[in-house]
């Protein structure tokens, strides 16, 4: 094994260094390795002369009673027989210190690899030992304080303050590990003069896996003096373990990693005390105490209450995290209820998700939200652009899921790299399988939410070989930043549940709405039928007297004609003219209202043939007109409603002939199919319509010319045409320049290219 020292330490040594097999201890205690049941000493730390009064060379081979005397050894044997020493170093006895009889030595033991390890630690001379009274009242105070906090973070801020008071260390921090093992300083109490580490993040490699495992094994680690000289064991290898170093996993005195001391040196720390915070048997975080001004040693009596406190904090953390979770869950549930309630009130259920007070971002820990509904994007808060959300939806469809949660979107969908600052995290639900409706929540990159209180301008530490030292907070932070680039905080289970529940509710509402729509449709159909009969009845009632007047006027003309004066004749003619016009008018109106009743059956139809038929018919009914028709580009064969299409072309072609003073009425009819949606046109060389009338000409009864011009007309033709086109889902417009004839264009299906904008 390569020797790892402060000098040659590098990053990879973190995982190589086997901290528990270091074979050395710190100098504030002594360690003996014994054989059971004889309690013969097989190894001793080389400081035994100073600490136990006997040089290690002499100790090895001795029995324990030779060192401690028969009485103490007997007491220890009783403890050894009754206590479980397998999982930790356990306190065995405290006896008067061998050389200073007014001081006490604490002896604890641990069985590992068939060996008995025994650690000896002295009580600091200045301590007046009265733990029972002094600490119990202080602890009680603290417990009260600790139970006052609401929420995990405020609790931890109380914790660090209390630990600082109790331990006397200059800085106390709480680290929390995330799922990947990266850490964050979530609470800190410190002397004002010290640099703040609150908010500092560092990568998992800073507290490598072996170190984390060791933290789980010991309730407290203490490094009284970072500049200590490690005390090796004698002999360095145990004769009882086939030459392997003795396993110091549980040892309190164990020498620490040079990585760790290197890091502390760079931070200017002289002494540390670290207590693991456990949740459900797993390392949750650490309480880390640091002393900057000088070495600091806490003896057994002083550490004992801290150890108790850390165990209590561990218990409380579980509770508080559950409580925080629970409270968050309740808030999400309330937000869900509000959203659903709002949807019930709002006209459009999706609109309700984007209200100013009640919206998708209520309570949930996300900075932005989006709705994509049939290609239409609605955004809220900090989000990618509409275009980017569209791309995202296309990618989502390929994932073939209805609920998706990711906290590293750029890893899953590389195109998301460009907007990872606002959306490294994505939570998405597909509301409807039939249509492409997605609701999304976005979470920003972790970096954008991270604020380290440390001073960014402080110079970096340079190694002897001129390299920037890895072992310092600044480098850790930079390294951590690289690791979490493109990552957001992970989505919690309750957030994903919240999204799924909303999905369910939205679907329920959609089903409910479509049922309501069905009912409305039925009602509408009935009311349409009623209206239809009404229209016919009204027309009937209007036509009947009109016909009577017309008939009587005609009778008058036919039977009494010879008695009438010239003027009388004229007047009878006028009556006939007017009633005739009104009759024509009523018929047109009836046709207009009937367009809605034409059955929408779609059949493949050759539009070319249809147009030719209409032209033939019009040529026959207008034998005096000279009409030429040029059909190109050729008309397609397409699915359409033939009755509707006939009405459209007949009206447009009739108009093209009617509103035309030229000797030769030259018509051009054609269809452009370059777009998704074919565009038909009917162009003439007749009169043109000035642009200010373009909007009005499609309104019913809107006429631009007098009754006597162009053979009169009901003014309903273009209105009927437009209605027939709209029935098919298309639209009509006019392109007409002054004096250049008119060109009517129309489509028969919804204009897709226009939707895409």
């Amino acid at each position, binding site marked *: 094994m390569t020797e790892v020292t402060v000098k040659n330490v590098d990053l990879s040594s973190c995982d190589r260094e086997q901290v528990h097999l270091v074979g050395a201890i710190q100098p504030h205690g002594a360690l003996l390795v014994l054989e059971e049941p004889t309690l013969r000493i097989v190894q001793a730390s080389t400081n035994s002369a100073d600490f136990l009064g006997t040089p290690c060379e002499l100790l090895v081979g001795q029995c324990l009673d030779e060192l401690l005397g028969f009485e103490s050894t007997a007491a220890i044997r009783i403890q050894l027989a009754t206590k479980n020493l397998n999982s930790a170093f356990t306190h065995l006895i405290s006896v008067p210190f061998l050389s200073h009889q007014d001081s006490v030595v604490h002896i604890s033991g641990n069985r590992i690899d068939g060996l008995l390890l025994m650690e000896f630690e002295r009580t600091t001379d200045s301590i007046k030992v009265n733990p029972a009274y002094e600490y119990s009242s202080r602890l009680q105070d603290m417990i009260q304080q600790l139970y006052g906090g609401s929420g995990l973070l405020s609790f931890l801020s109380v914790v660090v303050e209390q630990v600082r008071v109790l331990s006397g260390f200059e800085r106390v921090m709480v680290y929390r590990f995330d799922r990947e093992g990266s850490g964050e300083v979530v609470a800190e109490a410190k002397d004002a003069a010290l640099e703040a580490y609150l908010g500092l993040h560092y990568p998992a490699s800073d507290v490598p896996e072996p170190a984390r495992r060791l933290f789980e094994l010991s309730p407290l680690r203490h490094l009284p003096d970072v500049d200590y000289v490690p005390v090796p064991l004698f002999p360095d290898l145990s004769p009882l373990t086939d030459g392997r170093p003795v396993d110091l996993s549980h040892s309190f005195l164990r020498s620490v990693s040079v990585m760790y001391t290197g890091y502390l040196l760079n931070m200017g720390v002289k002494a540390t005390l670290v207590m693991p915070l456990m949740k459900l048997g797993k390392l949750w975080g650490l309480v880390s105490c640091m002393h900057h001004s000088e070495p600091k040693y806490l003896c057994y009596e002083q550490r004992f209450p801290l150890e108790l406190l850390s165990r209590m904090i561990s218990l409380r953390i579980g509770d508080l995290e559950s409580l925080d979770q629970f409270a968050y869950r309740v808030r999400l549930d309330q937000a869900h209820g509000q959203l659903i309630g709002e949807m019930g009130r709002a006209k459009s259920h999706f609109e309700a998700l984007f209200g100013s007070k009640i919206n998708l971002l209520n309570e949930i820990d996300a900075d932005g939200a989006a709705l994509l509904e049939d290609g239409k994007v609605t955004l809220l808060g900090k989000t990618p652009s509409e275009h980017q959300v569209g791309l995202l939806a296309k990618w989502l469809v390929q994932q073939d899921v209805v609920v998706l949660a990711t906290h590293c979107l750029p890893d899953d969908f590389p195109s998301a790299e460009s907007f990872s600052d606002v959306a490294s995290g994505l939570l998405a639900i597909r509301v409807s399988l039939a249509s492409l409706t997605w609701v999304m929540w976005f979470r920003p990159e972790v970096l954008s939410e991270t604020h380290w209180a440390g001073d960014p301008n402080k110079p970096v530490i340079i190694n002897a070989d001129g390299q920037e030292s890895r072992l310092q907070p600044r480098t850790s932070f930079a390294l951590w930043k690289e690791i979490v680039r493109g990552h957001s905080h992970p989505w919690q289970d309750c957030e994903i549940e919240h999204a799924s529940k909303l999905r369910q509710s939205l679907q329920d509402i959609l089903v409910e709405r479509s049922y309501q729509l069905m009912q409305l449709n039925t009602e509408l159909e009935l009311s349409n039928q009623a209206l239809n*009969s009404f229209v*016919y009845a009204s027309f*009937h009632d209007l036509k009947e007297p009109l016909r009577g007047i017309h008939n009587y006027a*005609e009778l008058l003309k036919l039977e009494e004609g010879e008695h009438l004066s010239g003027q009388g004749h004229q007047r009878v003619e006028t009556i006939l003219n007017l009633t005739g016009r009104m009759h024509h008018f009523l018929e047109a109106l009836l046709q207009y209202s009937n367009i809605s009743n034409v059955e929408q059956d779609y059949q493949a139809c050759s539009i070319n043939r249809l147009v030719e038929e209409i032209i033939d018919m019009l040529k026959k009914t207008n034998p005096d007109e000279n009409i030429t028709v040029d059909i190109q580009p050729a008309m397609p064969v397409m699915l359409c409603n033939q009755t509707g299409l006939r009405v459209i072309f007949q009206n447009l072609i009739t108009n093209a002939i009617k509103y035309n003073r030229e000797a030769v009425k030259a018509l051009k009819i054609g269809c452009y199919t370059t777009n998704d949606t074919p565009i038909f046109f009917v162009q003439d060389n007749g009169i043109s319509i000035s642009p200010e009338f373009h909007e009005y000409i499609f309104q019913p009864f809107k006429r631009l010319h007098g009754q006597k011009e162009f053979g009169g007309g009901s003014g309903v033709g273009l209105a009927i045409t437009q209605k027939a086109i709209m029935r098919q889902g298309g639209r009509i417009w006019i392109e007409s320049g002054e004096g250049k004839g008119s060109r009517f264009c129309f489509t028969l299906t919804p204009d897709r290219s226009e939707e895409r904008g």
Partner: protein
Amino acid sequence: MVKTIKKMRPLMIVEDSDEDFEVFCWALQKTGFTRPVIRAESAEVALTHLFPELLQADRIDPLPCLVLMDLNLPGVNGLQLLEQLSKMKQLLSIPVVIMSTSNNPLDIEACYCFGAAGYITKPFKLEDYIEKVRALTHYWFNTVMLPEGSD
């Protein structure tokens, strides 16, 4: 049994409008129609005439050989009358032709469903009126055979 000379069975018109009736008669006359014509102003009158047994009355006039009927009648309307007639076996041999202002496809279909023998929309121009009446009488009295037997 004494054989009486059979009266020529009349043409019956069910029409509430005096004006329409007048114009119709005028058109009949123009086409040279010679049969007797009887008029009922309402469905009730028509029914009494066609089926006097209904009111335990005696038959006075002979049954018509053809009925022309307007749809828009006061009280019981034409369609309802047609429906009632279609249920009377004794009257099934008399064809009923509808003459109406309405060109509502629903009306037209309903009339044929209730056994109408034809449906004519009342023309707007007298010229057309004469044409239609000529065609009507030509068909029913010169082309096809109508039941002429005694009741």
